């Protein structure tokens, strides 16, 4: 069985007047259907690690396999296409496009992928929004709904292309405890019901404790 994610000896150095090695050879493996949290103190390198694992950052040493495919060494355009097909993102801030409606925001990645006809994409997007409890917000502009709702729309957008891996960078960092609970339950549901793999960086010890596995990063190493 192939792993959802396999990272081998990932190293990252920030160049500059005083070069700083942020990651000192991290290796980790995620099985399919695992819900994993990465924790650690500020500046320990956990976000740096997530951006490398999510293919957005390509300036690192080591090798990375995602869904059985080696992504290290692929071109930017190939990586964009890979992200489109296999990865979903949820960030601390929702990063929705404020000039589009919620429905349109969810549809955009699927339209980019272009695997389905528009009518089907619209239907799927509507379904995702309903699943996340924001179906009635579909026709509102993304800038006109509350923070908790925005984050749920962002999760719907991350799920629209049916990605194998969902990555989160403090997805609940900006939410109150009630909305944090809702988002956690959603993530857990995605893992349990759809067999997706979820990898999130979090500051929230409660959130981390409830996930399947916790990876703690200390000074650029996995503890």
């Amino acid at each position, binding site marked *: 069985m192939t792993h959802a994610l396999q990272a081998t000896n990932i190293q990252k150095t920030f160049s500059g007047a005083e070069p700083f090695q942020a990651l000192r050879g991290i290796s980790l493996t995620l099985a399919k259907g695992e819900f994993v949290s990465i924790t650690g103190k500020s500046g320990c390198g956990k976000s740096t690690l997530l*951006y490398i694992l*999510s293919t957005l*950052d390509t300036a690192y040493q080591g090798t990375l396999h995602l869904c059985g495919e080696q992504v290290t060494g692929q071109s*930017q*355009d190939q990586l964009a296409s890979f992200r*489109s097909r296999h990865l979903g993102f949820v960030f601390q801030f929702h990063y929705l496009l404020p*000039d*589009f409606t919620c429905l*349109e925001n969810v*549809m955009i990645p699927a339209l980019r992928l272009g695997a389905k006809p528009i009518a089907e994409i619209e239907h799927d997007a509507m379904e995702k929004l309903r699943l996340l409890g924001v179906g009635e917000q579909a026709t509102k502009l993304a800038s006109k709904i509350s923070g908790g709702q925005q984050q749920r729309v962002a999760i719907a957008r991350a799920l629209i292309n049916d990605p194998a891996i969902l990555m989160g960078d403090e997805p609940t960092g900006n939410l109150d405890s009630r909305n944090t609970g809702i988002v956690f339950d959603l993530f857990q549901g995605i893992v349990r019901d759809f067999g997706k793999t979820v990898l999130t960086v979090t500051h929230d010890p409660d959130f981390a404790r409830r996930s399947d596995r916790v990876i703690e990063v200390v000074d650029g190493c996995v503890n």
Partner: protein
Amino acid sequence: MTKPFRMKIETQIALTFMRSRPKMTIVASLGVMFGIGMYIFMNSIIAGTNDYFEKVTLMSTPHLRIYQKVPRNDETILGQRLSDGSIPLVVNPQLVPTVTRIRDPYSLMDRLRRDPDLLAVSPQVSANLTVSKGSVEKNANLCGVDILEQDRMFDIASTLIAGSLRDQQQLTDGILIGAVLAQDLGVSVGDHLLLAASGHSSRSLRVTGIFRTTIKAVDEAKIYAHPEAVQQILQTDRSYVTELFVNVRDYDHLTKPMAQKLRERTGYSVETWEEANEQSLAGRVIRNILANAMIFTILLVAGFGIYNILNMTIYEKIKEIAILKATGFAGGHVVSIFLRQSLFIGLLGGVVGVLFGAGLSLGMSHVPIGVGGLSHLPITFRFQDYLLGFLFGTGTAFFAGLIPALKASRVDPVSIIRG
């Protein structure tokens, strides 16, 4: 919105970005609009000016003038008589007095009139003489012409300020004289004038009309008469014709080849209207250079406007660009979004600019000038100016958007999203 995304996703995003910043879009489009509008207006006024000067030129110059040059001293005749080693030496060469006339002009004219490329052929019997009324005497340039044929070439009827061409055609002793000359001599229609050529006879002729061409040299010296009247004053035969004026079908392109053809066929000198008016062609070249410099500047400024506004848009939308890239948009897709945006700005400005250019040209064509024969600002409406203006404007917008679009495609999502 019941049916979102009927268009391509990049198009939809570009249009939404534009709609969310209406002021910016309008300002950028206004830049293109002014660029294209000024392009159209400048070209229209330059074309109008050129057309006006061409019309004025062609009111006094025929497309082609066939005449006999005064023969020069020809050394080859001398050379034939001399043996090898001799050096021909001509001291103080003089022009031989010859009559510069067209031989057998009427059969030549018959042949010319059969050429389908030639619109009009008008024989000219010209002479320099003095014209007098009482004690006032003036030099004049007398032209013996068939006035109706001449009118077809130079539209004399439109320059007449008194009298009529019909009277001139019917009265064999009638003359048309320039307005300044008429004033100097103090004559009006119906008065008689005495015309006298040096060494020839004189004749009294009646004024049937007065014309004003606004070209002073013509208005103060030109007199039209019947060819027979001139021939009588000069005491020559009925076939005495000094030159032939010829108008061709397409005077922009046909004059040069036709001049060459007539030169070979008749053996006479043939002068085109361009050769006779080289100074006005120089003026045309300079006007075109000036106009192009201005148009280039205007389009450049409009281009910088679009460049600035798109740069600002990209700065504003940098987070959204980052998120698009994170969710699977490649660099090329981002370039495509912003190029579409600048192209739409170009098209919007282009359509409005064409209307603006047409309106401006139309408005300015009513501005009174009132100098010379110009009543209003000369404006020519040409479809090509509108088409090229539109293409140049949208092209400028497109290329102005290229650099910001490439910049947007290089946005690093990690550094933006992490803050």
